[in-house]
């Protein structure tokens, strides 16, 4: 589609913005990337997303689309060439959406809390993360390559942060979550995901992530403030 103006507002370490990058690249969609400093938000970002003031924001021919889950569906529906991100069958679509919601609510939040908490609070967060990951491990059993089948799909993209960001959380928080005995299918999937040509060139540098999250852990005191959104 020539002359389609696509702009993605993101933040280098945001796993949510990265999802959109992956989707655009998988579909072969040309786009302009705009780095936002989420710690010093631009007026433009606030204008584009007044309700949440967050990235990612996709602007397509002047239309503003927000929320990574919704941006992915928008991309799939607007550029409906292969690869299709969501399955065609309604019950498979429902299951995909279900697991995406589950993973975001139960795995990401708990893992982020494991990153920045201490002691018993952290132990609890690790336990909750692993309990939730057991369900995803179950879903991966018997899957060929990816949740999406032969190619990367919506659920792979949503869960993709596990492959490159969760190990950083583990290192910074000094915890182990990705136990190879408990999660062999997840780890195998994670390695395939990381080696995918579209994915491996769009990851933030590990050293930079370590520094960033070490700072976050320092600043955030999860024990005092409770569950904090990324």
């Amino acid at each position, binding site marked *: 589609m020539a002359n389609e103006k696509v702009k993605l507002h993101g933040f280098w370490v945001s796993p949510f913005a990265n999802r959109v990058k992956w989707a655009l690249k998988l579909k072969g969609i040309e786009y302009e990337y705009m780095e936002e400093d989420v710690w010093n938000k631009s007026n433009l970002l606030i204008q584009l997303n007044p309700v949440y003031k967050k990235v990612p924001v996709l602007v397509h021919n002047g239309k503003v689309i927000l*929320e990574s*889950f*919704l941006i992915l*569906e928008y991309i799939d529906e*607007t550029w409906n060439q292969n690869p299709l991100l969501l399955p065609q069958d309604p*019950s498979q679509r*429902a299951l995909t959406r279900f697991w995406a919601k589950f993973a975001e609510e139960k795995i990401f939040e708990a893992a982020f809390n494991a990153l920045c908490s201490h002691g018993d609070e952290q132990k609890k967060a690790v336990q909750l993360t692993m309990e939730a990951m057991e369900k995803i491990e179950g879903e991966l059993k018997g899957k060929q390559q990816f949740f999406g089948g032969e190619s990367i799909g919506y659920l792979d993209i949503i869960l993709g942060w596990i492959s490159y960001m969760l190990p950083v959380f583990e290192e910074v928080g000094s915890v182990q979550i990705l136990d190879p005995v408990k999660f062999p299918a997840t780890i195998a999937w994670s390695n395939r995901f990381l080696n995918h040509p579209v994915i491996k060139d769009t990851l933030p540098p590990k050293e930079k992530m370590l520094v960033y999250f070490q700072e976050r852990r320092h600043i955030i005191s999860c024990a005092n403030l409770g569950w904090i959104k990324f």
Partner: protein
Amino acid sequence: MAESSDVKVLGSWPSPFVLRARIALHLKSVNYEYVEENLESKSELLLKSNPVHKKVPVLLHGGNSISESLIIVQYIEEVWSSAAPSILPSNPYERAISRFWAAYVDDKWFNALRATLLAEGEEAKKAALAQVEEGLALFEEEYEKLSKGKPFFGGDEIGYLDIAIGCFLVWIQVIEKFSEMKLIDEANTPRLFQWADGFSSHVAVKDVLPDVEALAQFGLKLRAKFLKTPQ
């Protein structure tokens, strides 16, 4: 067209989320069996159909078990896609807008609504009410943009966002009763006020809305139980 035995909804009468599933089925003229669950003593069927969350609503259809109300509504739209009306707009951008506001309802607004009922102390309650009003002001604005002069967010007919917000209307009446203030009224939210009337009296909605008095009683019980439980 599905036989009523093919489609089942597991629900609970006070739940606004269950209403979403039922309204969507009514809009598509799908016959279904409604099963009232006792949430204090969940059925084997419910536990088996939604093992992850063990919650209502659950839609059972031809061997499929679908959970999470907005996911159920989208499923209904996609399965019965040839039945009018369309629940979601056909244009991807407009779909994204409907989904955005429905997600806002569930991710942000619902917590405030819940807090108006369950919050301890006047300060917390006031803060929650303020947040509910903030949300309603946003919906008032969006309604003007999205309805384009028609009766519903979805246009001529009830759509995804009407369902996502409208399912809470009786709960809003309960909260208005308890807090002795109006949240949706002709003065502050004139468009929503009219919309609420149209939504509540719609043929796909009116027979499944709970009775305000019964819901208020339920609300009191819920609050009492919640405040007793250590948080």
